[in-house]
């Protein structure tokens, strides 16, 4: 492999005292910004750019990488505590994490997320160290037809694994999400769609806006409407992990980390798809593990942290940013005159391996930073409603405003939140809507490219090995509800999200 020499250089770079300090600084900034509702890794990195300009390239990249995975690490906090996912990859964490918090187990949920994130990040870093150059090939194998089919698979599983009696409602919500995703400039033709001539809409709706409106704000409004007094969430003595938890979640975390890393390597919505697939896999295919919220929190958290590490594979080895966040990181690297890509390993071995090795240290730092905070953070959930609801509303509005600095977004968000409340009262689940929205643009772009390539023929489903496999998976998923029709009563277990 020849990597051992490189790893030794990396160790030397990462353990340089100044660089150690920058790992800690980056993780600290990232994890705190990431904890804020509505602020995700991309905001965290953007805020830290001025700091990075004053550092030498290796230290700057080590710090910025720390900001990135630190923000992903901290991102679960607002998902679990106030149902406000600040980044698409923590949406799945809120499915089980928020209900746990409502039942008074906020501390346990946060601790689970922290440990799973740590394990996911570390397993991801090991995989990055060992397989980085080899995995670059995987990213090249996945092309438009494969992406299109993977997205069809993701959307199919939303409906197929919905609760009993919710299949049609989930499908309808996912379709509304897909439609919301078409607002803005059409990527394939450059035409404006549903913008009503407003400049504010030409870039489409932002994820933070839709997520905050349909999750956090809709939940806050529901709390107000539900009334039933001003009782705070009961305190249950679950501030920490249960004694049995580590053993129970270990296999889940291991599985999700590997899956997360592999999906994260693919440029695109890596971390989001990874966390979502891991969650679905855990909740649906592994029924014999028992329906257990602890695993439902651990699976997406392990996966999204591993995927975040995985996204460094195409960035460092091919110079290709897989997400908005890595695109900003690429900009930072270019400003240092460092061109990531096939030659980075030869030109800057100390930086390449230094950044990777620093991720181990970073993950330890993050665990040490986050665990002591959990008892304090989890108190938020015990606030009285008349305190908690305004807090949630203020922070979601602030989060959306800080991302775009556009007051129009606030009006739009309030409208969406009201629509969200109506949909919830009518019994529609909002998670499929949000997922449909997140995946909409990617699905459309990849499908249209595939159609252009194939001259409108649908044969691409079958004529490439990877797409054939994905098509088979989709068919299996479509058959799942049929099987359920014949199977007898199993209690619905999915809480409303």
């Amino acid at each position: 492999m020849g990597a051992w020499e490189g790893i030794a250089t990396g160790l030397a770079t990462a353990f340089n005292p100044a660089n150690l300090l920058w790992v800690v600084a980056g993780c600290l900034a990232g994890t705190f910004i990431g904890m804020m509702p509505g602020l995700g890794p991309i905001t965290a990195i953007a805020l830290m750019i001025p700091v990075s300009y004053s550092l030498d390239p290796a230290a700057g990249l080590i710090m910025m990488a720390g900001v990135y995975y630190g923000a992903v690490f901290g991102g679960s906090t607002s998902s679990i505590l106030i149902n406000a996912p600040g980044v698409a990859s923590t949406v799945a964490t809120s499915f089980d994490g928020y209900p746990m918090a409502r039942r008074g187990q906020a501390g346990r949920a946060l601790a689970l997320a922290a440990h799973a994130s740590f394990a996911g990040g570390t397993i991801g870093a090991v995989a990055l160290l060992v397989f980085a150059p080899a995995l670059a090939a995987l990213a090249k194998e996945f092309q438009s037809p494969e992406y299109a089919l993977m997205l069809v698979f993701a959307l199919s599983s939303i409906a197929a694994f919905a609760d009993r009696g919710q299949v049609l409602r989930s499908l309808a919500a996912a379709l509304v999400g897909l439609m919301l995703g078409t607002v803005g400039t059409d990527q394939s033709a450059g035409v404006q769609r549903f913008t009503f001539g407003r400049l504010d809409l030409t870039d489409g709706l932002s994820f933070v806006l839709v997520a905050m409106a349909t999750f956090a704000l809709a939940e806050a409004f529901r709390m107000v409407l539900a009334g039933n007094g001003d009782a705070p969430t009961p305190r249950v003595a679950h501030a920490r992990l249960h004694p049995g938890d580590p053993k129970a979640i270990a296999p889940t975390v291991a599985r999700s980390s590997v899956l997360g890393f592999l999906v994260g390597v693919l440029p695109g919505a890596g971390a989001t798809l990874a966390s979502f697939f891991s969650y679905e896999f855990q909740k649906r295919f592994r029924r014999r593990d028992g329906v257990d919220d602890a695993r439902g929190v651990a699976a997406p958290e392990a996966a999204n942290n591993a995927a975040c590490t995985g996204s460094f594979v195409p960035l460092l080895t091919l110079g290709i940013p897989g997400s908005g966040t890595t695109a900003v990181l690429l900009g930072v690297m270019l400003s240092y005159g460092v061109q990531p890509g096939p030659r980075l390993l030869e030109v800057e071995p100390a930086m390449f391996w230094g950044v990777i090795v620093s991720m181990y240290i970073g993950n330890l730092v993050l665990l040490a930073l986050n665990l002591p905070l959990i008892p304090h953070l989890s108190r938020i959930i015990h606030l009285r409603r008349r305190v908690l609801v305004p807090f949630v509303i203020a922070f979601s509005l602030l989060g959306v405003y800080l991302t775009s600095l556009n007051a129009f977004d606030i009006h739009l968000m309030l409208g969406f939140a009201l629509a969200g409340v109506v949909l919830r009262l009518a019994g529609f689940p909002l998670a499929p809507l949000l997922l449909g929205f997140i995946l909409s643009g990617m699905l459309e772009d990849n499908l249209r490219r595939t159609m252009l390539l194939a001259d409108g023929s649908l044969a691409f489903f079958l004529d490439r090995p990877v797409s054939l496999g994905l098509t088979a998976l989709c068919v299996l998923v479509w058959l799942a509800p049929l099987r359920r029709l014949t199977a007898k009563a199993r209690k619905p277990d999915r809480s409303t999200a």
Partner: protein
Amino acid sequence: MPTWLKLALVAVTLCVWSVATAAERVHIVIPAGPGGGLDGTAREAGRVLVELGQVERMSFENVSGGGGGRAMAYFLENAGRFDAPLLVNSTPLLVRSLQGVFPYGHRDLTPVAALVADYGVFVVRADDARADWDAVLGSLGTNPRAVTVGGGSTRGSLDHIVLAMALRAADIDPLGVRYLPYDGGGKAMLALLGGEVDLLSTGLGETMAYIEAGEVRALAVTSAHRIPAIAEVPTLTELGHSLVFANWRGLFGPPDMPAAVLEEHLRRLDAMRDSSAWQAVLERRGWDGLDTTGDDFAAFLDAQEAELREIMEALGFVQSRPER
């Protein structure tokens, strides 16, 4: 000294300080998020100007959205609030203004100076059988569907337009050629490397590293002269096609900018251009320096706009009717 006097002194100092700093501050509005090419151009120029002592303080403001239209609206509305406001912009300003994405154009601003240029480049995989640009044109001439072209932006935006210009220069109908848009130059490059597309129309800046690494082969650039770092790659002009196209990035002032302020900006930018610090920036970023300023810049913009309008009408992205 009594307390009130101390407080008064502090207040006076603060006032003087804020007035003094406000007078020395140059404020640049950037119509994109942090980390991209426009952001980099503004911040690098600002850093060099401060290092040289040409400007005491610089501030930057990222206003993204609306394809650059929000920044334009914001700049026109708020320019009066700042002492020396500037807007950084690039060729897509002309493209989007022609498409009618926003109701503004370069004539609503005072062109100050073009700072750097990026050029279009056509690349194939290193192992592609087609040896040169003529071979690609040959394949396309016999069958327009034979070569699939990828680019880092939507149909009707820069990568697509430069491709269309180059094809028309060789008498090939650009509408018959298959163009696949990707979300950014990086993903388009991945599609080329993975074999989904055969030819990439993209910016030289973001492609240089792949060319130098030997992963891809550049067939032609749209610059007027060969680029030193890839001196073996011919220009389109050398190949007998009369096409030179630069994607410029430059600075603009508000419409009513006084001549004295413009002079002051030009003097500072001259000093910057001559400095070794700026040369180092160009070298490090792989940018080509430009020195078109003031009226020359305005004339250059008019000419490029006419060129773009012509090709965009041919492609059907602009209706050939009087401006709305």
